[in-house]
């Protein structure tokens, strides 16, 4: 008892000291006093009040009538063009992996209710295609699209052309090779055997190198930056690019952590991939897109800084809530539960900023594809995170652990939050890189509705069935096979939802390729959900 309490006390003390030091540092460096000025760094002089993605016909456009505006628009154009090759490399790859990952996910889903589907070949057995799905969408789609968007945002945030973009292009090639080798290894049965860490560790080196090469342009461009303030998005992106290689390296150290301690490392890593890698990227993108499209700064810059540091402090220690009730020391589980609940602080601060900035502008969701995808993503971040904090509580976790409920929660986070924000960002970025507008407004609409209805069916059916499954598992009165039968309708519904999402991805990929090939008519107007009449594209 005594050493446990002592350890907890020491940890709490160290944590609060670190938190306090960070706060003092922030204040000493005027991170707080320049609050609203920093929030405006993403705008050029005079740009505030002008939407960059004109989301409604009545928007006053930033046309370049004055010399100051012309200079700002040219600087923006130069910044966008500087990152073109690097961003297109990462984004195009990510769309490919999204399609591949979706098909593997759909096949896994079908196998859950049709167990004889594709069983003849060992390469297509459920236990191999499911990890192929997870790794393809996590490291292929989400990570590559996230890095692609980050590369696009870096020159814009630092108001200077991207320096060293070629390192990111090389990094992209290495990353793709890593994915091909890693996914093949899983298919051949050479998995490392731990969830989220299936790629053999020899192949993981490629991801560390590929990721590190992307940090080079970040650092070089940061050194060249022309803005005094670092906008909050750059905080998130810089931290994410520091965290990922560190995490990935430690978790993959071969043979370092046997037995039960291997499980703690496994879940420390797996949740950090979500919390310290894809989440900061997703939130960071939303922090840029929402104010930029609305033409108004985020409502509280101070809150965004509190949100950032509390995310770093709390999210890094939540992982062990995946092992509640497992064979590991209780203090460790308790520590993660406490931090999971504390996560509501960064979540709420981010929610206030994202949704507060949207206040009074919700009508723009009717027009702007980017805003609609990004804001729904931001909303789902709030929902999924608060749900996650609840799920970490012992009384809830005892029911939801080991059930489909967790799978629904994971997709709410990785898909409804992150993927929606990435879709929105791609719709924003591509016209600016290719100097071409999206050819067909109806395809954007179709994509949106397919994936929205798909994920809705997915999450609702598995959440309900998973909860019922969890309650039933606790009471041995219900035979195990009866529980399996009870969940079957939800597993079938998941296939329907997943099929709609996959269809949506096909539409998205088709449109993306059409965009690269400059199909459709040349137009000076942005492609919005509703026909726009007057405004200019850029």
């Amino acid at each position: 008892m005594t050493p446990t309490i002592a350890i907890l006390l020491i940890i709490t003390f160290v944590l609060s000291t670190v938190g306090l030091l960070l706060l003092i540092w922030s204040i000493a460096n005027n991170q707080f006093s320049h609050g609203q000025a920093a929030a405006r760094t993403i705008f050029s002089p005079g740009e505030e009040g002008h939407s960059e993605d004109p989301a409604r016909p009545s928007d006053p456009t930033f046309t370049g009538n004055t010399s100051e505006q012309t200079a700002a628009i040219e600087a923006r154009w130069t910044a966008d063009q500087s990152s073109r090759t690097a961003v297109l490399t990462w984004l195009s790859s990510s769309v490919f992996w999204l399609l591949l990952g979706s098909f593997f996910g759909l096949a896994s889903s079908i196998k859950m209710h049709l167990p004889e589907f594709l069983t003849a070949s060992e390469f297509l057995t459920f236990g191999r295609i499911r990890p192929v799905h997870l790794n393809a969408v996590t490291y292929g789609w989400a990570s590559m699209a996230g890095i692609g968007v980050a590369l696009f945002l870096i020159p814009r945030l630092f108001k200077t052309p991207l320096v060293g973009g070629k390192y990111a292009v090389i990094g992209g090639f290495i990353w793709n090779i890593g994915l091909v080798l890693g996914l093949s290894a899983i298919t051949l049965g050479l998995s490392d055997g731990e969830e989220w860490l299936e790629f053999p560790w020899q192949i993981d080196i490629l991801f560390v190198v590929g990721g590190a090469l992307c940090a080079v342009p970040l650092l070089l461009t940061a050194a060249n930056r022309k803005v005094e303030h670092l906008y909050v998005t750059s905080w998130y992106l810089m931290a994410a690019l520091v965290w990922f290689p560190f995490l990935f390296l430690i978790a993959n150290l071969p043979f370092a952590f046997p037995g039960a301690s291997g499980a703690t490392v496994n879940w420390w890593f797996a949740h950090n991939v979500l919390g310290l890698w894809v989440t900061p990227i997703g939130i960071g993108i939303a922090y840029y897109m929402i104010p930029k499209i609305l033409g108004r700064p985020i409502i509280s810059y101070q809150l965004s800084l509190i949100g950032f540091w509390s995310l770093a402090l709390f999210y890094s220690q939540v992982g062990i809530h995946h092992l509640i009730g497992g064979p590991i020391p209780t203090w460790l589980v308790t520590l993660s539960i406490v931090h999971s609940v504390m996560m509501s602080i960064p979540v709420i601060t981010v929610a206030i900023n994202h949704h507060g900035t949207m206040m009074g502008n919700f009508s723009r969701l009717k027009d702007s594809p980017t805003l609609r995808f990004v804001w729904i993503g931001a909303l789902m971040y709030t929902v999924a995170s608060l749900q996650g904090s609840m799920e970490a509580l012992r009384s809830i976790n005892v029911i939801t652990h080991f059930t489909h409920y967790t799978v629904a929660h994971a997709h709410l986070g990785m898909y409804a939050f992150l993927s929606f924000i990435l879709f929105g960002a791609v719709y924003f970025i591509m016209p600016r890189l290719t100097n071409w507008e999206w050819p067909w407004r109806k395809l954007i609409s179709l994509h949106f509705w397919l994936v929205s209805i798909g994920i809705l069916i997915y999450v609702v059916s598995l959440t309900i069935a998973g909860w019922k499954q969890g309650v039933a598992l606790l009471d041995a009165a219900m035979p195990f096979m009866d529980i399996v039968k009870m969940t079957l309708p939800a597993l079938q519904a998941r296939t329907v939802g997943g099929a709609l999402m996959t269809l949506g991805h096909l539409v998205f990929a088709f449109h993306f390729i059409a965009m690269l090939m400059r199909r459709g008519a040349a137009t000076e107007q942005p492609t919005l959900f509703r026909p726009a009449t007057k405004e200019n594209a850029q």
Partner: protein
Amino acid sequence: MKRALAIMVGAALILLLATLTLVVMPYLQMSAEQVPPDLKPYTEQQQRGRQVYIANGCVYCHSQQPRDPSFAPGDKDRGWGRPSVPGDYAYDEPHLLGTMRTGPDLFNIGARQPSIDWQLMHLYNPRAIIKGSIMPSYPFLFRHVEEPAEGDKVVNIPPPYGPETGKIVATEDALALAEYMLALDHTYPAPTLPKKPPNSDEPKENRAP
């Protein structure tokens, strides 16, 4: 640049702290845990079976970690066994604790189904034994032969699940996997578990060394 560096260093330091608390300290504590004297290391064949288990992703539907009955009573009541302790996993590398129970927990499957014929038949087609099972079949772990050779392990599959003619024999992989299943038997007492949880809410408190 100074500010950018400060953010990155700050971010790295926080992660370092998390690594100390979530990776290093548990590792130090758990590697000092006693290994139950009745726990046997895996044989070469069982270890090979374990690799087959990993290669085919059994972990995505099966856990190997019964929870404490005072916390989650269903685990013990379903016959999955006593709560597991860190020492039980001393020879497990990588761990296969699992996070899903689409199928039942397998921590003591060797004690529940000690027949190798049951295991092999179930692997060939789970529905031959359990009606309505949604576990995939693993036909690729078996060979279909007209006449089994000497030393072949024949698996008698009840109709209609078996082939029309000839016999199904187990491959080395199937035998190894079945042997691994049988080795999953942790019915021995755990030395680090208190005989009677003194405090039903946090029975594992006393387990710390």
